[in-house]
C-alpha cells in the first residue's frame, strides 16, 4: 500500500517547515518585529496543539497494531496509515522546534489516551476494544477529529508554509477516513465520501 515516507521527503518537510524561523531576519521595525513574534507565537501554539493530537493518534494506532486485534488486509492497511501518522508527527515536531515551541507529551498510557479521547468526544475507548471492527471504528472516529483539527488550523495558522503543510496533512487524514470506512464497509464507495466539503469533527 505505498512506501514509507522517504528520508528525503521528511527532510524536505523539515526544511519547508523550518523556513518559518527565518522571517525575522528581514524585519526592519520593532513594531513589525513584535507583530511577527506574536504571529510566530500563535503559530507555535497551534502547531503544538496539532502535534499533541497527532501524538494521541499515533499512540492509538500503535496500540491497535500491537494488540494484534487486526489481521489480513485490514492490518496491512492500518499499518500503512500508522506509518503516515508517524510522518505527520515528525513534520510537526520539526516545525514546532523551528518555532521555538515546547514539544507536548503524548499519552503516557492507555488510561491517559482514553481520557484524551473522551475529552475530544471521540467515540470508542482504547481500553475497551472488543475486536477488529471496534478498533476500526475507533480509528475512523479519530481520523474524523483529525480532519476537524486541520480544518480549524486553516483559520489559526498564519505562516504560508505551515498552512501548506497543514493542508497536505488534512488531505491525508481525509484519505485515511476513506480507507478505514471502506475497510468497515467493503464496496460502499459512495458512502465512503459523503460530503462535498470535508470539515471533520471538532
Amino acid at each position, binding site marked *: 500500500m505505498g512506501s514509507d515516507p522517504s528520508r528525503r521527503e521528511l527532510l524536505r518537510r523539515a526544511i519547508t517547515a523550518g523556513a518559518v524561523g527565518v522571517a525575522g531576519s528581514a524585519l526592519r521595525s520593532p513594531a513589525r518585529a513584535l507583530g511577527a513574534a506574536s504571529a510566530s507565537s500563535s503559530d507555535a501554539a497551534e502547531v503544538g496543539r496539532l502535534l499533541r493530537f497527532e501524538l494521541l493518534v499515533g499512540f492509538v494506532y500503535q496500540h491497535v497494531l500491537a494488540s494484534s486485534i487486526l489481521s489480513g488486509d485490514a492490518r496491512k492497511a492500518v499499518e500503512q496509515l500508522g*506509518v503516515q501518522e508517524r510522518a505527520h508527527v515528525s513534520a510537526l515536531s520539526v516545525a514546532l522546534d523551528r518555532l521555538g515551541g515546547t514539544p507536548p507529551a503524548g499519552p503516557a498510557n492507555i488510561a491517559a489516551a482514553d481520557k484524551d479521547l473522551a475529552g475530544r468526544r471521540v467515540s470508542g475507548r482504547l481500553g475497551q476494544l472488543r475486536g477488529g471492527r471496534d478498533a476500526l471504528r475507533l480509528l475512523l472516529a479519530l481520523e474524523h477529529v483529525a480532519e476537524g483539527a486541520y*480544518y*480549524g488550523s486553516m483559520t489559526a495558522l498564519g505562516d504560508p508554509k505551515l498552512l501548506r503543510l497543514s*493542508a497536505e496533512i488534512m488531505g491525508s487524514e481525509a484519505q485515511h477516513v476513506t480507507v478505514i470506512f471502506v475497510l468497515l464497509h467493503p464496496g460502499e464507495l459512495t458512502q465512503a465520501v459523503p460530503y462535498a466539503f*470535508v470539515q471533520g469533527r471538532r
Partner: protein
Amino acid sequence: MVIEDACGSRRALLGGVGVTVAGGAVVLLTGCGGSSPAPAAVKTVPVRVRQIDVGIFNRSLHLERRSIAAYTAGIPLLTGSVAKAAEQFLSQELAHAGELLGLIHAAGGTPIPRAPSYELGHPRTAAQVLSLLEQLENQQLAAYLDAIPRLSPGPVRASVASILANDAQHVSILRMALGSSPASAAFVTGRN
C-alpha cells in the same frame, strides 16, 4: 475525447449549495459537509472575500469545470459501485464549482467564461477513464495546495481546504478502483 462543457445542464444542482452571497464583497461560508455541522465561526460570521484572490478562484474554477466535464463524459464507461461513486463525485465537483463561483461573486469579481470544450484525450475503457479522473483530481489538489497559503482570511482558506480534502478522498476511491494504494503518501500533494 473533446467534451463540451456540461455545466449548463447541471445548473439546477448548484442552487443554494455551499455559499450564500449577502451583498457586495461579503459572503457567509455555509459549509455543507463534514461529519458534524460546520463550526459556528465559519457558518455564521460574514467573511470579506478579497478581490485579489479572484484570479486564484478562477483558476480553480477552470480545473473544477474540466473535471466536471470529464466525469460527465466518463461515467457512461463505468459500471456498478464505481459508476455510482463517480456520479456522487460529479455532484460534489459541481458543489465545489458553486462554492468557487460564490467566492468570486462575493469578491466582486467575474467568473471566467466557460470553455466550449476540454481536450481530455480518448479514454475508451473504464481503467482509462479512472486514470484520467485521478490525474485531473491530482491537478486540482496541487492547485489548491498552491492556493491555500495565499488566500485570506482564514475562513476562505478553510473553505478551500474542505474542497481539497474531498478531492483527496476522490483520489483514494479512484485509486482503489484502479487497484492502487488508496493512500499512497503521508502528505497529499497532488503529485504523489
